[in-house]
């Protein structure tokens, strides 16, 4: 049987807004992916640890507090340090357009902002992870 794509949906930082993360997690699960949701307030270290132990293909970060420019690049860098170079990192939340080029330069493959249909995220993952 073909191995299913494994996705960690993670909430870094102190932000408690998890409506989006949970809706996305469920939509990804309904689309046939294996989904692990971390819960709130995850440090970068905890996210790396979970990515390693769960052997995921995708890390989907959700943050609505404005700390994305600090935390997203840090998580990408730490994943690379641990040798997880082929893990696809995507992000979502209240993220101004002006910040997206910076995040992409720092290894976040795509940023999904409010109003994005979950189907777009599913299609993106299917296209990127083979």
């Amino acid at each position, binding site marked *: 049987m073909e191995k299913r794509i494994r996705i960690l949906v993670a909430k870094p930082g102190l932000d408690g807004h998890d*409506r989006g993360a949970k809706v996305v997690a469920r939509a990804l699960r309904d689309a046939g992916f294996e989904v692990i949701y971390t819960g709130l*307030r995850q440090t970068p270290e905890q996210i790396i640890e979970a990515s390693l132990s769960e052997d995921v293909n995708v890390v989907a970060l959700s943050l609505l507090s404005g700390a994305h420019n600090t935390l997203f690049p840090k998580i990408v860098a730490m994943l690379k340090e641990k040798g997880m170079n082929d893990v696809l990192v995507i992000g979502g939340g209240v993220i101004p357009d002006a910040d997206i080029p910076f995040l992409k330069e720092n290894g976040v493959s795509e940023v999904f902002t409010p*109003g994005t249909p979950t189907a777009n995220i599913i299609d993106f993952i299917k296209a990127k992870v083979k």
Partner: protein
Amino acid sequence: MANESLKAKVAAYTEKVEKSLVKNPERKNLAHNRLYTPLDIEGFDYESELGIPGEYPFTRGVQPTMYRGRFWTMRMYAGFSTAEESNKRYRYLIESGATGLSCAFDLPTQIGYDSDHAMSEGEVGKVGVAIDSLADMEILFDQIDLGKVSTSMTINAPASVLLAMYIAVAEKQGVTPDKLNGTIQNDVLKEYAARGTYIFPPKPSMRLITNIFEYCSKNVANWNTISISGYHIREAGSTASQEIAFTIADGIAYVEAAIKAGMDVDDFAGRLSFFWNAHNNVLEEVAKFRASRRVWAKVMRERFKAQKPKSWMLRVHTQTAGSMLTAQQPENNIVRVALQTAAAVLGGTQSLHTNSKDEALALPTEDSVRVALRTQQIVAYESGLADVVDPLGGSYYIEALTDKIEAEAWEYIKKIDEIGGAVVAIEQGYIQREIQESAYKWQMEVENKQRIIVGVNQFQIQEKPVEGLLRVDASVGEFQRKKLVDLRARRDNAAVEKALAALEAACKDEHINLMPLILDAVKTYATLGEICGVMRKVFGEYQAPATL
């Protein structure tokens, strides 16, 4: 007999309409009936269901004349960056005609971490103002007379500490605690269920909350000691009925905890307040407000046997629905907020925050906040909506919908009672799952275009990135860290240690009210992180159940 004639007429109408549907179908997924007539409120008893404004069961409002004397409090939620910056915004809001303050704190403050804690990285000053100690609080309210302004603070797990800081600042201004007006959110149950800024497990959290009830009833008598919040439950995706049901279930848990701690219900119930969301469906929201007042009045009078009419009143602050703002075509949000404002006012709110058009993208700029405040002022002064008490009362639709929402709320409350109350229902993840279910349903309806959101899934345009958004300077964290180093060097550290040790000892004895000890610690300039650190040590931290 008149009803028989009406029944026949309505039946004939329905038959005629149903036949025409083949040719002229109605829109799909309409939530309510086509038409409401006296048949939909059969058995309606004006006196018991609506009554007189300002009297039990308060369906028509908690005040006899509602807005004919004074409008609701126009209270704009604000705060970002440092105390210095936020103080400027508060003074700007007061000069612009805001009639109350509402403080937004950053996440480290809300979760009891100082700005220099590792967990605070990237978060300092982002979603609200960073408060590390009494020194910051003094700056935050500089040149604002705490004897005159009423201040609402969105603070939950560390509510006792921020309230103590507020009392201490007031004392320095020469204002005694009995003269203070305001609200602390202090609603930890909805943090577990929907908002996420919890610290301690339920038991010590409930103790802190009842300690505040008791302390304020004796010392800060005009303070609203809690704002039992449905707002965030709705933002997390619940329906209107779930919003009021889960929140009133939380309210029941707080009342039970306070009674269990030995308080008389009438000594604290009059200071309990609520917080509703003003969502998109205007008339459903109006019915929700009315239903919520009726449910709470019954809970307090019948279940808890409160004697004072004030104890039966559901007084409410409202905020327009942040989750309904769109990042697409943000100007459209001004219209959404205006409609939501109409809903809150027709529903009879006591105070209101209106969101700004740019809040799906960032914190609002001064200009967009002004439009949001002006929206309230236009509804107040120009629309006529505020001129008559409960103007929609008696509408067949509104009354039927009010009854329906009330019935749905009772059903949920009964279910939660059976589970063992709100605390157990949250610990088991029941409330979280119900909310998630509704949130997912909503999202799927949007994606399937069963629900149209203008500019999002219909009427889209090619848009340029929005410019001129407010940005919080990344140097805020560094600025706060420096202030902390400076503070720790100049305060009397022996006094700090002594106050923290006394607090730690008191935390271990559940019969001691912690408020006086927290106030003592705050006055020594012990930091928020130090005070919460002591409580973390004794109380431990809440571990959320997995509910996905």
